[in-house]
C-alpha cells in the first residue's frame, strides 16, 4: 500500500521517497521523518478510512517498530553500545529510519556474499601436489604443534557441524519465536489482569524480542483470546485476556519460524 507523505522537501508516496533516498537522489539527512509518523497516526484515527485488516496491521506494525526502537534508544543504560557520534544532531526518527535502510543494505549484501562464496566454490583447486621422483625434504609441518593442540584440533574436528541454513528473512530472531511467545503469553496473561504493552515488554533485552511479543499479541488477538485496546497514544496499548477457560491449540502456531 502507499502512504502519501508530505515533508518540507518532499511530497509523494513513501516508496518514492525511499527510492530517492536509496538511489542517492535525496539525502536522508534532509528529510525529517516526523510527518511520516504523523500520517500513520492520522490514518489510524480516521474512522472513514476503509482499510483492510492487512493494511491496518501493517500500519500498526511499522509504527510499533519505529516507536519501539525509539523508546529503546531513549532509555538510558539499556544499550551498552557506544553512542553513534555520526548520528548526533539527527532527529531520532531519522536515525531509526537510516538504521532500517542500512540494515536492509547489509542483508542484501550478505546475499551477495553467499553468491560470491558459491561462485568461488564452483572452482576446485589443484591438490595433487608434487609427483614421486622429486627430491623433496619437506619442512616439519608439525613444528609448534603440541599434544594439547592436537587434542584441541580433535575436539574441533569432531564437533557437530552446523546445519545449512536457507536464508528466508534477514530479520533474525535469535532466541525466541512468535509461536513460543504465543504459548508463553497464553500461560502468563490470564494471571496478570489488564496491563499495558509497555508493562509487558519491560525487561526485554532486544528490539526483536519486543517485536516478537507484539506479533504474538496480534496473534492472540486474532484467535480471540486477547483484547487489545488503544489508549490515548499508540504506545499505551492495553492488553486484556478474554477467555480464561479456553486453552490454546498449539498446533496452530508451531510452524512459525521467526
Amino acid at each position, binding site marked *: 500500500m502507499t502512504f502519501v507523505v508530505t515533508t518540507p522537501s518532499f511530497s509523494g508516496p*513513501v*516508496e518514492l521517497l*525511499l*527510492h530517492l533516498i*536509496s*538511489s*542517492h537522489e535525496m539525502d536522508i539527512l534532509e528529510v525529517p521523518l516526523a510527518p511520516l509518523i504523523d500520517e500513520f497516526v492520522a490514518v489510524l484515527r480516521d474512522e472513514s478510512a476503509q482499510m483492510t485488516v*492487512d493494511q491496518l*496491521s501493517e500500519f500498526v506494525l*511499522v509504527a510499533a*517498530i519505529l516507536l519501539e526502537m525509539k523508546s*529503546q534508544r531513549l532509555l538510558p543504560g539499556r544499550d551498552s*553500545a*557506544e553512542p553513534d557520534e555520526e548520528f548526533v544532531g539527527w532527529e531520532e526518527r531519522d536515525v531509526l*529510519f537510516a538504521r*532500517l*535502510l542500512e*540494515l*536492509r*543494505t*547489509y*542483508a*542484501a*549484501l*550478505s*546475499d*551477495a*556474499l553467499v553468491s*560470491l*562464496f558459491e*561462485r*568461488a566454490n*564452483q*572452482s*576446485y*583447486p*589443484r591438490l*595433487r*601436489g608434487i609427483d614421486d621422483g622429486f627430491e623433496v625434504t619437506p619442512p616439519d609441518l608439525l613444528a609448534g604443534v603440541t599434544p594439547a593442540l592436537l587434542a584441541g584440533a580433535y575436539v574441533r574436528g569432531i564437533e557437530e*557441524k*552446523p546445519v*545449512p*541454513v536457507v536464508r*528466508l*528473512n*534477514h*530479520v*533474525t530472531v*535469535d532466541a525466541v519465536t*512468535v509461536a513460543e511467545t504465543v504459548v508463553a503469553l497464553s500461560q502468563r496473561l490470564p494471571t496478570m489482569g489488564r496491563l499495558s504493552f509497555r508493562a509487558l515488554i519491560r525487561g526485554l533485552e*532486544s*528490539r*526483536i524480542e519486543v517485536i516478537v511479543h507484539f*506479533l504474538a499479541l*496480534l*496473534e492472540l488477538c*486474532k484467535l480471540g483470546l486477547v483484547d487489545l485496546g488503544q489508549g490515548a497514544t499508540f504506545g499505551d496499548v492495553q492488553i486484556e485476556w478474554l477467555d480464561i477457560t479456553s486453552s490454546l491449540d498449539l498446533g*496452530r502456531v508451531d*510452524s*512459525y519460524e521467526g
Partner: protein
Amino acid sequence: MRAEYSLEQKLEAMLTVAIEPITSEELADAVDDDASFVLETLRQLRAEYARERRGFQLAELASGWVMQTSPDVAPWVTKFANRDVSHRLSSAALETLAIIAYRQPVSRAQITALRGVNVDGVVRLLEQRGYIEEKGRASGPGLPILYGTTELFLDRMGLASIADLPPIEEFMPPVETANEIAEELFESALELAEDA
C-alpha cells in the same frame, strides 16, 4: 611458440605442483626473476586460459595464485573434487560478516547497535571459522576490540582484496524499506491468522 624454459612454462609447472595459493613473490623467488614481471606473466596466463576456454583457470586470491578448475564445467568435476567446503553460515552470521566486511574495523558494540541484537556468539563463531580477526583496539572504556576480515575470508570469496567486494551502493534497498521489513514479519503472522 614458447622459447625453451620460458617463464610461462616454469610458472605453469610450479602452479601444477602447488597445493595451496602461492604469492607472485614466492614464484619470483623460485624462478629468480623480477616479481612485477612474474605478476604480469601470471595475468597473461590467466587471460590466455580464459580466452582458450581451458578446463583450468588461474585465480588470484588474497593469499596468492592458484590453479583451479573453471566454474563453467563444475557439474562434471564435482565427483572428483577434493576440497574443504566451509560450512554454510546462518543468515545472522552472514549479515554480521557483511557488516564487518564493509565497516571494518568495527567493534562488537557498533555491530550490536546496528543489528539490534547481541552478536557476541556470532562474532565468536566467525572468529573461530577464521573469517574475522582482531584488527586493533578502539579508544574508550574497556578498549573494545575492533574486528576486520581475514585473508581466509577473501580466499573463500574468491577475492584478491577487500577492494574487490561489490560496491555497497548497488545494494541499497531500491523501493522496499521499513514497510517491507514490517511486511515480511507480518506475513508470517497473517498466515497464522488465516490458518486459525
